[in-house]
């Protein structure tokens, strides 16, 4: 439970000690600000940015403000919380405003940096010592979500909302031309605007929510290159060197979506609760793709070399998607409950594409040497999924309850077959699975609690080789209060999955163990300790066919992971109405197996009062990542923070 690490972030600022004061201040909260600096980064800076990405400079680490209007004319309370502003890789801001019985307004903004440049990821040039990944991006994704809910009466609540999700940046990706692929630059820019409105009707016996929404989407991607790019093919082909000398590819996607939602809950009689929902959406996408490339290419289909290529595609896809569920809780006796639920989820994707391709010779006399126009209405992707589940719960005593049940999952899918498929244009799959369910909960006073959930399934068909087929899933948990100040916890979970057919054999095993200790002597008045240790094993074994030799090979993946997190919090005697605090701990992760990795994040923090409403903050944190098989991907650096926390 890395609650330890979180505890520090989550803990509220020290109260200004006058809680008994009758008047509530019109403005309260705290602001943390300061500066971060780092030691020299040792190791791979691209991986550091892909994993940590924290920078130096002046920062607003956290602001948590509450504004109250004593007259309650426009609002009762406005809260504003912001985290990590000032060039940080992730910024958040949330504002809530309420006036009891009138309205509730919320807005949530996030700005997250997506950076990825990992040398070992999808890099065919790694064996030649080239550490520049061909799949990288540096994107900023921003999201804003606002909602206004009105309460004209206690029974009817209309609401409206708007959300925008947009991302922009650049990266490196590959342009593929039959026999060779070329790493080129690209730009990314997409935006989705979503509007919704609805009404909630709450009566004593039932509730209905009706919502209608829609979104507008656009995605603009561009690939470009103006240099002589020899690509990943390092040898000649039929005596010629393939290359790319110019590329301009534009990928414009636009679309929309409408959706409807109806939710219903009711308690018609005291022994019965009903829940139902009907959901519908219909996203649509239109695409215009243009490509002009020059260089030396080869077309397998036409078996010819050519010097330039023009491609134009126009396509459209829709996806009417309907989901529904019905559930009930039935209490035939005081200690018996029956949970019954049925759900269905189904969609199909009709699509069509118009393609126009021209292979060009770089001469003015007979420029076009191949290609043509093709219109294709594709077989739709069709999907239907259904699930029915019943659970019976018996409260043997108020401390012990047992649960048993059954889940039946069935469905079918028709998908477009991959190239070279032997099933024609489409492939069809089915899922048919019966799952037995069991569990118990036991609580002895408030000192000891035990619980377990178990599932065992048998399926005679599923969609993919790695899907759950014949599986057993178990999770157990125990909590024990050893002393008034010492709490212990233990969790264990396992998942075994087996696809037993000889040619499709797949064996998957996962175990997770964890123990947790919380020590809070005297109610954590002076010192507290939160710590946990987790141990996990994962093993996947599946075979595949090597096409050249037509022999079976194993895809074997194993991972043994150990994670330890702890935080010790020490409070010192009060000074200027606040307690100086020292916290230290951190998290350590180490794994062996297919990709041995170490990732350490020890941390120490000091808060020292300098004024009744101000504390000096200091933090040291060390990031250290190492990979035994990819030594060049390791990094380590020290981060230091100094700043102030101002209480208002």
């Amino acid at each position, binding site marked *: *439970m*890395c609650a330890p690490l*979180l505890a520090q*972030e*989550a803990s509220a600022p020290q109260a200004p000690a006058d809680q008994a004061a009758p008047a509530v201040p019109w403005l309260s909260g705290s602001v943390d600000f300061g500066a971060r600096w780092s030691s020299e980064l040792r190791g791979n800076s691209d991986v550091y940015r892909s994993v940590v990405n924290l920078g130096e400079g002046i920062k607003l680490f956290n602001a948590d403000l509450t504004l109250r209007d004593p007259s309650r004319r426009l609002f009762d309370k406005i*809260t504003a919380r912001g*985290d*990590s502003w000032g060039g940080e890789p*992730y910024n958040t801001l949330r504002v809530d405003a309420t006036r009891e019985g009138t309205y509730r307004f919320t807005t949530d903004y996030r700005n*997250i940096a997506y950076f*990825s440049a990992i040398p070992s990821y*999808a*890099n*065919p040039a790694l064996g030649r010592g080239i550490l520049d990944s061909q*799949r990288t991006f540096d994107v900023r994704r921003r999201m804003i979500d606002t909602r206004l809910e009105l309460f004209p009466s206690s029974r009817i609540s209309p609401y409206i909302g708007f959300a925008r999700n947009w991302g922009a940046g650049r990266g490196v990706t590959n342009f*593929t031309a039959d026999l060779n692929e070329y790493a080129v630059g690209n730009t990314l820019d*997409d935006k*989705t605007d979503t509007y919704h409105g609805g009404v909630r009707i709450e009566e004593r016996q039932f*509730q209905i*929510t009706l919502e209608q*929404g829609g979104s507008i989407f656009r995605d603009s991607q561009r690939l470009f290159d103006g240099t002589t790019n020899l690509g990943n093919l390092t040898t000649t082909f039929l005596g010629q060197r393939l290359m790319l000398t110019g590329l301009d590819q534009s990928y414009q996607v636009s679309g929309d979506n409408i*959706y409807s939602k109806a*939710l219903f809950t009711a*308690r018609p009689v*005291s022994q019965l609760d009903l*829940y139902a929902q009907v959901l*519908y959406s219909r*996203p649509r*996408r239109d695409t215009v793709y243009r490509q002009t490339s020059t260089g030396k290419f080869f077309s397998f289909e036409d078996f010819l070399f050519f010097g330039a290529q023009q491609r134009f*595609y126009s396509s459209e896809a829709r996806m009417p*998607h309907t989901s529904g569920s019905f*559930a009930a809780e039935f209490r035939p006796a*005081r*200690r018996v409950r029956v949970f019954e639920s049925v759900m269905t*989820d189904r969609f199909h994707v009709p*699509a069509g*594409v118009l393609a126009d391709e021209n292979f060009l010779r770089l001469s003015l006399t007979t420029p076009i040497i191949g290609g043509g126009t093709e219109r294709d209405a594709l077989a739709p*992707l069709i*999907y239907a999924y259904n699930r029915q589940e019943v659970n019976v719960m018996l*409260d043997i005593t*108020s401390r012990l309850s047992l649960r048993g049940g059954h889940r039946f999952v069935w469905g079918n*899918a028709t*998908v477009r077959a991959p190239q070279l498929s*032997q099933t024609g244009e489409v492939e069809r*799959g089915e899922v048919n699975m019966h799952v037995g369910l069991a569990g118990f909960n036991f609580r002895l006073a408030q000192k000891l609690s035990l619980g377990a959930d178990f599932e065992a399934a048998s399926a005679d068909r599923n*969609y993919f*080789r790695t899907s759950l087929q014949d599986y057993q899933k178990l999770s157990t*948990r125990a909590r024990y209060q050893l002393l008034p100040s010492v709490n212990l916890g233990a969790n264990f979970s396992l998942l075994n999955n087996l696809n037993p057919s000889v*040619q499709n054999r797949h064996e998957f095993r996962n175990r*997770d163990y964890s123990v947790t200790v919380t020590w809070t002597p005297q109610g954590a008045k002076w010192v507290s300790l939160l710590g*946990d240790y987790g141990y996990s094993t994962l093993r996947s074994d*599946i*075979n*595949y066919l090597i096409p050249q030799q037509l022999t079976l090979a194993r895809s074997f*993946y194993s991972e043994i*992971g150990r*994670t330890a997190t702890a935080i010790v919090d020490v409070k010192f005697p009060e000074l200027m109405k606040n307690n100086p605090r020292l916290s230290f701990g951190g998290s350590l*992760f180490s794994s062996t197996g*297919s990709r041995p990795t170490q990732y350490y*994040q020890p941390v120490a923090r000091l808060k020292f009062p300098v004024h009744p409403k101000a504390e000096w903050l200091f933090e040291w944190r060390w990031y250290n990542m190492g990979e035994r098989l990819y030594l060049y991907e390791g990094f380590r650096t020290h981060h230091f923070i100094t700043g102030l926390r101002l209480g208002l």
Partner: protein
Amino acid sequence: MRNKLFPSVPSPKRGLPVPGGLFLLLAVLLGLNPAAASQQQEAKQKAENVGSDTCQACHEDIYKAFQKNPHSVVGKDKRRGWEGKACESCHGPGSLHAESADKKDILNPARLSVAQADKNCLTCHLNQATHVGRIQGGHARGQVSCVSCHPVHKDEGGQMTARKAAAVNQQCASCHPQVWAQFQRPYKHKLPEGAMSCVDCHNPHGSFLPKSVRTVAANEPGCLTCHGDKRGPFVYDHSPVRLEGCSTCHQPHGSANPKMLTRHEVRFVCLECHFNRPAASPQTLPPTLGGVPPALHDLRNPRYNNCTICHVKVHGSNVDRALMR
């Protein structure tokens, strides 16, 4: 008719028209004594509401903290019918308890079974849109009570539950330490940094999707809230994305593998489904989807060990069947 002390607990005298023999059999099996229970209920029905001020006399600390809890609105809002009686809206009429100070004379949800405690809460809160997926959710099935996450008495900064991302994560991690351990791996969603919280992706009240994953735009998986560019529909969908979701290839909580992949090398993620055998004949083996990749690839060549350098549109393409553009 509802019991006055336990308004949410059905009176044993009034049940659904279950056949009497069956009810008796169930009662015997469960060790119930309907007659004794009835006498106890009748005695408690004599209790009357006395108002929260009476409770304050002995439970001063709880009363003060409760005034800063959003639940206190129950006692302030006339329309709810509990004006000045917020304590008794959950604990039942307190007159007997006020006289005897005996804990047996008052309803204490903390000592009830989870089912009864939840029923107490759901008496008022059942009819809310957030609970529509409750029965399908793991918390209801696993008997996690409402008060495990929503402290009713405490002053939680004016909230019924944690709101800051770090505080939400701390709360979830206290019961799901193994999941939180996965976030200590290098490639993960930014939860430890406080940029996201567990409830951004999961609805703790339940959802009709597995693992209580949130939905967006009515019935699409919550992953698309942020990863909207992967939404599609695509002319050429990569079917696992549609049929089994992102976790077919990614470990959403965290991984030691780049891009949170389930395997250490890209090719193995792909080859485990595209295993170079055609879909089996239904007579001999259950067919699975996607068995055949472009079978001419020389897997010894590093170029073909990294499938996504050519199949760049691995989540779906609008122009190319092989997902290369």
